[in-house]
């Protein structure tokens, strides 16, 4: 193993010049041990806002996991047959019966928004203000489209008789699982859209370039905030990947 002397890395520039995050050290396992040392800031190269977002997402992972595990449990224990999601969420398009169509479109919309968000983060770090703002508003629009389609889906299902305590297709627990899981996810998307709009305004008016403090905080604006918001948005997409697989396809 090729260990480099620490003092060389500590003085060689880029990372330390204008970021107060401590010097870069060794990579890999020795780096992990060194980072957790008592004289060290643990999360190097990560601004605290980003570290805190990761911890928030970690707690959110546990909440969504609890919802999905409860869904698994009621589905296993139910003595009635579970409704065939492929048919429940089918749509009639041009006289044709397409299974799970709406859900597929929603999946593509959310993945598209994840892509535009990733590019927004990239252009943010390149200080390309208008590209960032444009991609952020595009992400917000795609997110709003997703929520709109979810509202349509809920309306359709409720009209067909789905309730948290029963439904016409099978096991009564289906409704409770559906409304809780997709509702909780939809709430996450809605708040994401709200934050995306706020961030679009911040970027567009140049608050991040001028490091202007926020409305509710004295913290100066930085383009890292776009990446932190991006983490949240990708997480929302990530959760949908699991919901799509476990709830709609299984």
């Amino acid at each position, binding site marked *: 193993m090729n260990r480099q002397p620490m003092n060389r890395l500590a003085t060689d520039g*880029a*990372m330390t*010049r*204008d970021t107060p995050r401590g010097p870069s050290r060794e*990579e*890999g*396992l020795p*780096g*992990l041990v060194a*980072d*957790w040392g008592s004289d060290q800031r*643990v*999360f*190097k*190269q*990560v*601004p605290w806002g980003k570290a805190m977002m*990761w*911890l928030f997402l*970690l707690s959110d*992972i*546990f909440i969504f*996991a609890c919802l999905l*595990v409860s869904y*698994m*449990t009621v589905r*296993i*224990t*139910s*003595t009635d047959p579970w409704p065939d999601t492929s048919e429940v969420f089918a749509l009639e398009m041009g006289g044709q019966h397409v*299974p*799970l169509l709406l859900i597929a479109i929603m*999946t*593509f919309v959310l*993945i598209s928004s*994840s*892509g535009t*968000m*990733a*590019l927004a*983060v*990239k252009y943010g*770090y*390149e*200080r390309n203000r208008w590209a960032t703002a444009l991609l952020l508003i595009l992400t917000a629009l795609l997110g709003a489209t997703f929520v709109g389609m979810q509202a349509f889906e809920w309306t359709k299902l409720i009209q067909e008789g789905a309730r948290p305590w029963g439904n016409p297709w099978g096991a009564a627990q289906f409704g409770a699982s559906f409304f809780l899981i997709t509702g909780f996810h939809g709430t996450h998307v809605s708040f994401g859209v709200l934050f995306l709009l706020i961030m679009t305004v911040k970027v567009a008016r140049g608050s991040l370039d001028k490091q202007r403090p926020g409305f509710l905080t004295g913290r100066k604006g930085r*383009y*890292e905030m776009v*990446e932190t918001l*991006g983490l949240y948005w*990708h997480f929302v*997409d*990530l959760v949908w*990947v*699991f919901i*799509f*697989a*476990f709830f*709609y*396809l*299984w």
Partner: protein
Amino acid sequence: MAHQDTAHPEGQRHPIGIYLWVWFLLFVLSVFSYLVDYLGFEGYLKWTLITLFMLLKAGLIIAVFMHMVWERLAIICVVLVPPGVLVFLMLLMAIEGHYVLLTRLQHFIS
């Protein structure tokens, strides 16, 4: 050079190609997931394929879109190790669930 840090050294900066590739792969994997349902696969084949595509998509999003492959091991471990216990929870509840189903069926039959 997208990797070269000049004026602004902080933050994650990577070439645009990798983002576009991952974006494209996510679309392809989603189409595959949808096809599993559309073609009407059943049983273990269906469940294996769904899980495989799900994990691939999740891995790509976390690794590239959330920049995890470029982070230091300290934050990777903090984020990715704790959810491991959730697999254990899932396993326990699956065992428990099958037991509950058994007792229910027993009750309804007798």
